[in-house]
């Protein structure tokens, strides 16, 4: 048998193998999707039998979530502080707390990503449109904003604008930054920021939504809580920090009910508390 014929046979075998494997993968994927859909329908029925009306869109399939690890970079941090406060002096207070002070104000930045910035009264940012003022400052601090979650509250002349950070267009639920205005003057910024550099990135296999809803139900049972409406199920992230080490961006499902929000870890199914 000459070489050409052998090649033809090999080609035919490989083509058939590819067809078979492609069919196998398609059938497998199709079966998984069907099973997920059925499990979700079952879980929906269970929730409804518990008196929980579902107004959330549960049919959505979230995109892939990248798991990232962030690390603090003191040099970059100083630059970000200067972008808001101008020239500052730096003092290490210990416990990974840095104190920055300048003419415009002072700030404390922590190893976990938590921070506070206080402006000297006459140096405070002023702006009639407080949300725009806050968003502009988030940009200076290199924190992308997840606009749909913006909150504004007013009381006794004080306005608090709360913006949520975003990564890859997903909301990071504990990357919450509060801008406190008195009249039109911004006096305080406080919250948590993403640490300065991503040092690793992996993709993770996430729990399907029916499993997440089961864990949500377990959490309700464990608390003895009662809710009557499931309003939204949204995949986002939270930062899980240690003082000196890295911060992990962990995927979580936010389950919004008429009582409160629950956060279910999308990998382990554990209930997370922010």
């Amino acid at each position, binding site marked *: 048998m000459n*070489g*050409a014929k052998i*090649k*033809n046979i*090999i*080609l035919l075998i*490989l*083509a058939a*193998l*590819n067809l078979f*494997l*492609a069919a*196998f*993968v398609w059938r*497998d994927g199709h079966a998984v999707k069907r099973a997920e859909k059925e499990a979700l329908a079952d879980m929906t029925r269970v929730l409804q039998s518990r008196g929980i009306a579902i107004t959330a869109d549960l049919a959505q399939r979230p995109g892939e979530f990248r798991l990232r690890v962030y690390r603090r970079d003191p040099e970059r941090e100083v630059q970000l502080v200067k972008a808001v406060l101008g020239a500052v002096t730096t003092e290490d*207070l*210990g*416990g*990974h*707390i840095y*104190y920055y002070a300048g003419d415009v104000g002072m700030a404390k930045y*922590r*190893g*976990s990503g*938590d921070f506070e910035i206080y402006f000297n009264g006459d140096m405070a940012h002023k702006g009639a449109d407080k949300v725009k003022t806050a968003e502009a400052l988030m940009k200076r601090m290199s924190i992308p904003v997840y606009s749909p979650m913006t909150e504004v509250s007013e009381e006794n002349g004080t306005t608090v604008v709360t913006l949520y950070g975003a990564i890859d267009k997903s909301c990071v639920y504990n990357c919450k930054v509060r801008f406190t205005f008195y009249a039109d003057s911004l006096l305080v910024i406080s919250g948590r920021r993403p640490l300065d550099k991503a040092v690793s990135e992996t993709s993770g296999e996430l729990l399907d939504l029916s499993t997440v809803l089961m864990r949500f139900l377990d959490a309700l049972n464990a608390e003895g809580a009662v809710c009557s409406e499931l309003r939204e199920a949204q995949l986002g992230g939270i930062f899980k*920090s*240690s*003082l*000196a*080490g890295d911060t992990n961006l962990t995927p979580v499902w936010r389950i919004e009910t008429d009582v409160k929000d629950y956060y279910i870890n999308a990998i382990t199914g554990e209930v997370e*508390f922010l």
Partner: protein
Amino acid sequence: MRFKTVHIEKIKTGAIALLAVSALFLMSRAGLLEQFTAAPGESTSTHRPSQTGSATLVMTQPLFIAVSNGEAGRCGIKYEGEKLRIAYGELSMALGEALGSSGEPEPITSDQWERALSGSSVFFDYYYMRDLSLIAEGLGVQTGWDSSGSKASLLCLAEEAGGLALYWLDAETAQAYRSATALDFSRIAFIFDQYPPNGAAFAFELPETYAHLSAYTLILNAMPEVRPVTAKNTLYADDAVERLLKLLNINPFVASRYAEADGTEVYVEGGDKTLRLDGDGWAVFRQSSDSGLQLLTGASSTEQALAGAAWELVSDALYPGGGQARLELSNLSYDPVLDAYTIGFDYVLGGIPIRSASGRGAAQLTVEQGFLTALELWFRDFEPADGSQTVLPERQAAALAEQRDGQRLLLIYEERADAVTAKWVTAR
């Protein structure tokens, strides 16, 4: 024509290569490739200790926490594992920052210590003495002063004029200390709404007088639910013995092996290494120092490093042991005369330590001059069962402890004759 044939053959070769790569890709998508890449006899699943929680959390988490909102009252978190884990998860950052930014400590009076406990504060009871530097390093910080040798079983973060001060008590010397920190009280203020008072009080705050019981024993007003527990001996489950032999560098083909009259299996290697495995799930290892496993090296000679190495060894040896119980550091002490460390680990289920009838916990190690010379392991799985166990209220247990001159009071699960029951124990 010949050129065309050559051209076609090249295309065929390219197509073969492409189809081969495509087939490999599709096989990996179908999960078929993993079956061929796993070594014979090996599972394709990742082999990791099943103990949940990081080693850091294990080594720095207290046994009890109290959240005191001044005159509004106090919430004591005892014997509720999940609640403790969540509370400590929320407070550990503040504790680490407080330790890291703490100034030079000053000794204080017991009145000052008690005022701190009774004010707006959070209190951490480790039950056993811990070196402050171990807690600090475990939380990723270093104190600005030399905290090695500073020991405490009780720590407190208390409000002081809008700031937060760090207090601790060395129970052995009964001396309390205070350090200023760089924290504002707002750092922990969020916790008071989350943990409303549940009537917990320190012994010194109660109307009854305790002459013997430690004044800083946190006493609950009402006991949480205590579930029954079942236990299973896991020494001869799966490949536990093979894994243990490998961890201890005992070659089963070289070591002498015999059985004692009571069925205890004994391995002896080299005349200085002995491992005894009894039918009750105990593994007892002895080895002379200067050989074998070195847990403390010159490059990493801190207690934190030692605790971490001990944790790795014990959790690997007992893997996937414990069942629903977590493995937690109970004590780490140093004998300067022998230059020897003793490190103990407990199984803890629902926030309650588990002990054998002989009073021993999950593991105990002795490390002399950096080398492991003794190791005791208790191979068990513990699972909570349905229902609840009746337990004497803590205040009554405290009264009984006082009658027995007991200084310390602890609820444990005790395994005795295949039954696991919750009981109060007292210690001097």
